[in-house]
């Protein structure tokens, strides 16, 4: 497998890897480093890639594991993640302005979810993966995925309602 073949296989999901890394690691720089590192790992193991039926799912699993490792080492060295880089890109209309606050709110709420729920929300609601694929990527049972996803969705909604009614009632 040469470089262009490799890129053909790998490029379609590079943004997904990046977004997942960012979801877990929060900062853009960290996520960029992680993405670079992951693609380098994939490149080194390019001979084995042909054996995997679903390279994308494999890459997502790798991303998840790598980010968990990074987070662990972060906690060990007692660093906290601070994010200040949430940027919105191209929403079509002035809707953008209207949405900005609320969209930011959702982002913060997801940030406060447990890691696993964060992952599942990212994979399902943002990247729109099948449940089967998510089960494979995270090595979880379908019911467990559904329960976590349902919990995450409900938490986000309830928090939004809470914030929305704050000061009104």
């Amino acid at each position: 497998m040469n470089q262009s073949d490799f890129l053909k296989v790998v490029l379609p999901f590079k943004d997904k890897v990046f977004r997942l890394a960012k979801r877990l690691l929060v900062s853009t720089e960290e996520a960029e480093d992680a993405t670079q590192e992951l693609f380098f790992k994939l490149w080194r193991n390019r001979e084995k890639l042909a054996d995997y039926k679903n390279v994308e799912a494999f890459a997502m699993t790798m991303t998840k594991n790598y980010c968990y490792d990074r987070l662990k080492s972060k906690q060990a060295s007692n660093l906290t993640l601070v994010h200040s880089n949430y940027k919105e890109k191209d929403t079509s209309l002035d809707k953008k302005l209207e949405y900005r606050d609320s969209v930011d709110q959702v982002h913060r709420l997801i940030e406060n979810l447990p890691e696993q729920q964060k992952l599942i929300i990212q994979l399902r609601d943002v990247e729109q993966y099948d449940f089967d694929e998510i089960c494979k990527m995270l090595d979880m049972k379908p019911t467990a995925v559904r329960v976590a996803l349902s919990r995450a969705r409900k938490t986000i909604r309830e928090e939004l309602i809470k914030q929305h009614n704050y000061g009104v009632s």
Partner: protein
Amino acid sequence: MELANIEKLVGKYENAETTLQEEATLRAYFLSDNVAPHLQEYQMMFAYFQTSQDETYTKTIEFKTEKKRNYKWLSVAASIVLLFSVYMGGSLINGGDKTDPLSGMTPQEREQYAQVENALRILSSNLKKGNDAFNNLYTYENTVKKIFKTK
């Protein structure tokens, strides 16, 4: 899409029972302009999901494959150089004694060589004499020091 239908889907969505198609229907509804007021929160959620989908990895992917291989060859090259130098050094030491500088010279050159050798020998013996004289001076000074205990 009717509101009743949407509400049903929302219920399923909360329990994570919707299929991808149903979620696409919900997304389309919530990203449109006329969303029922009591479902506002979903509008925010779907808007967020939509925008975060647009984020892309802008840097180029680098391949740094050459690094590892270079180190491997570097060590091989170093060992070859080492072996070669040991071999050459050994042959120089062993071969140095065998070759006679006088062989392959004309008689005239041989005479010149002898003369130079002689001259150098004289020079060296004279230097040695000077050294001996210095040594004598040192012993003299030492004894003087012993006697007078000066320092």
